[in-house]
């Protein structure tokens, strides 16, 4: 019961496009700012250490009609870019004082500058994350880039960000990521006790809850899960890959499970699992963050490290979770994900696993087509 209530609660917050929880936080912390970031690889620790609320915005889902944004972003552009623009143009983002974008793809990058023009009252910045992990110069560069952002945030917040605060933030987010990893481990071991849409809600909550609250929620849920009743079902174990940025509708995740998939790994709301391990909180914290991004970040289609290719990362996931199949769940018009599909596919085939490519949009109200494909896929694996 308590678990169900938590999930209901979270899904409500998730769908609240007026960002009541952010407004409430600002009321409780007078004079503080809220800074939104585009969902992948933002230095949340820095925003947090500035005494601000970092909020990961992953589009508006199916709750907002696009009526203004496609006059700015035309055809062949993914939906998250358009709904984010739409939220801005319809005053849904008034609770935010800043918006941080990063170098993940051309659409998101151009969105940053279109934002700058359209919303001059907001602090809008672009973080260049290095793509050359092989060069030692990368860490120095990112170190400087983070310090530039720190300077901007200090200007915005009117106060300095000190190392102690930054270390404290790093510890908190380390703990948060550890709990999320534990949640994923639990799901991989007992997919019948924790459904993917539930773990999705829990992870995604990390995007908008204050980290302290998110930690408490995760701890609460983890302690309750152990005793949850449940029965193993006849399903196939799948890894879902490709929705690291734009998020599929909750119903699509539910549909995958209803069609007979146990999702044992995924990259939904990747934000909460950026690093493989902990960011060191001793020594220079800014440098530690920069080092962690360059050396220890989890792969995704928008991070380039040719020495540690993404397809090997996927292979590891498959092996670690003993998955039987892969579902590539890609947002329509997400160019980085579609490029990677080719190399992922090659790897999956080399491993002798079946896979299915599915495309989604944030706004999807009828699922017949997708469902037919998933069911066929499952039928081909279970029927003899």
């Amino acid at each position, binding site marked *: 019961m308590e678990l169900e209530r938590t999930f209901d609660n979270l899904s409500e917050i998730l769908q609240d496009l007026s960002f009541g929880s952010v407004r409430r936080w600002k009321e409780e912390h007078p004079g503080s700012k809220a800074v939104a970031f585009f969902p992948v690889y933002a230095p949340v620790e820095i925003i947090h250490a500035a005494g601000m609320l970092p909020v990961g915005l992953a589009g508006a889902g199916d709750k907002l009609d696009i009526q203004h944004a496609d006059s700015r972003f*035309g055809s062949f552009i993914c939906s998250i870019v358009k709904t984010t623009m739409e939220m801005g143009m319809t005053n849904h983002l008034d609770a935010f004082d800043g918006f941080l974008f990063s*170098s993940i793809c051309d659409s998101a990058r151009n969105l940053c500058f279109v934002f700058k023009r359209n919303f001059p009252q907001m602090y809008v910045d672009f973080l260049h994350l290095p793509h*050359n992990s*092989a060069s030692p110069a990368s860490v120095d560069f990112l170190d400087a880039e983070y310090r530039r952002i720190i300077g901007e945030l200090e200007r915005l917040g009117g106060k300095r960000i000190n190392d102690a605060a930054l270390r404290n933030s790093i510890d908190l987010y380390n703990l948060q990521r550890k709990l999320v990893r534990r949640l994923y481990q639990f799901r991989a071991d007992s997919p019948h006790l924790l459904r993917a849409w539930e773990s999705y809600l829990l992870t995604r909550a990390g995007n908008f809850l204050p980290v302290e609250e998110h930690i408490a929620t995760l701890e609460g849920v983890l302690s309750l899960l152990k005793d949850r009743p449940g029965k193993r079902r006849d399903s196939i174990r799948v890894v879902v890959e490709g929705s690291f940025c734009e998020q599929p509708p909750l119903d699509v995740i539910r549909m995958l499970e209803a069609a007979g998939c146990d999702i044992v790994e995924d990259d939904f709301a990747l934000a909460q699992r950026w690093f493989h391990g902990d960011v060191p909180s001793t020594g220079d914290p800014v440098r530690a963050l920069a080092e962690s991004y360059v050396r220890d970040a989890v792969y995704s289609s928008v991070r*380039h490290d040719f020495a540690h290719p993404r397809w090997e990362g996927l292979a590891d996931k498959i092996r670690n979770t003993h998955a039987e199949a892969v579902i590539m769940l890609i947002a329509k018009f997400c160019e980085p994900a579609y490029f990677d599909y080719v190399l992922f596919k090659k790897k999956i085939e080399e491993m002798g696993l079946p896979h299915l490519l599915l495309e989604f949009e944030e706004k999807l109200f009828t699922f017949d087509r997708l469902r037919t494909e998933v069911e066929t896929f499952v039928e081909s694996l279970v029927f003899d």
Partner: protein
Amino acid sequence: MANIPATEYRGGVHQRQKDLMLDWYATLDQAAHTADPPTVSMMVSGNCVELLEGFGAVPIYPEVNALQLAIRHQSLEPILAAEDMGYAADNCAYVKADIGCYVKGTTPTGGKMPKPTLLLCNFVGCNTYAKWFEHVATLTGAPLYMLDVPFLRGDQPSQADLDYVVRQLHEVVTLLERLTGRAFDYARFQQAVDWSRQTEEIWSQIKHLSQHVPSPFDAYFDAITLMGPLYVHRAKREGLEFFQAALAEFQQKVDLNQGIYDQEKFRLVFEGPPPYPHFRTFRDMFAKWKACAVASTYSTVGGLWEFGFRHDPERPFESVAMHMLVHNVTNRNYLQRYEQIHRYVKEWKADGIIVHFVKSCRLFSAGQGDMRDYFTKQLGIPTLYIESDIEDPRYFSEAQIKNRIDAFFEALEHSKQAGGHVTREVHV
């Protein structure tokens, strides 16, 4: 085949350009057979061809191959081959055409393409480059260096940005020394930077000639002809001589008050890459209205020199880095592009802007709607927005595009007859 439109410029420049490019292809063919000279594959955008001169290495530009395929109506087949491998309908078709060629072992000229000594991904703006090079590296097994150029967040790069790029350039030098077995010839590099400086000066003068009414050449369609030598030969004596001759030719036309039409009726600024698979058809749609491009952003992909930047032989590495960081349209942010276009409209005396949305290329096109909004609503400059593709012949709907272009000119003609520019109230 369609006849050559009367408007297409066919002076001596054209023949010399052809010869230069054929030379280049011949060298690549030779490299494919003898592995000499060394070849470096890189992107046109903000390319660092000067650095290669320090090794006597030759650039391979996958984009130039891709555009040659499209112009010769050969792009669909490799695109389909790539789609068979799993590339999506919406992926950049430049990449698909190039990958398709690797798989099929063909080139647009029929010659052989060498396996590059180094894949140097000069990551200048376009995220697709990074994918492209990774994919070619996996396909060919050629070594890859990802030269990460920080995107311009403000108007100018920071010292950290500059240091980062310079350090990587030095890493590339070390890597190339190992791969080619040749020592880096600093003096030759410096000389190359100096050739570039001089070529750029001439190129900039050429681009300013189109400020003249009538413009002596079309700064979109004709400028593309000049882009090959600009990227391949800029850092060589041949390049400089080519552009000197071109300048003389165009200057003569200016002196004679010759435009590309008997009477130039409209002056335009073009934004976005052209629809190469339908290049002629597209050009004719403007020729019909005697409309001439006086400036274009696409012709500044490789470098933006008309506003003053020159390579500097005194600071060769820094100036190469600065060129990659700031002085090419792809690494500049969107608002800087608005400014660039706006300057063109004012200083090159244009009547309107053509925004060509290219489905393949989000670098250019993601946000062009906002650009249109800015120019029409904020500045009141007539702006036409049309969609097709740079490489994929399937996305060109002739009747629809023609319809829009005709309507645009009907409106422009009407307001010109009514006296001067289209006037409209400015809304903010």
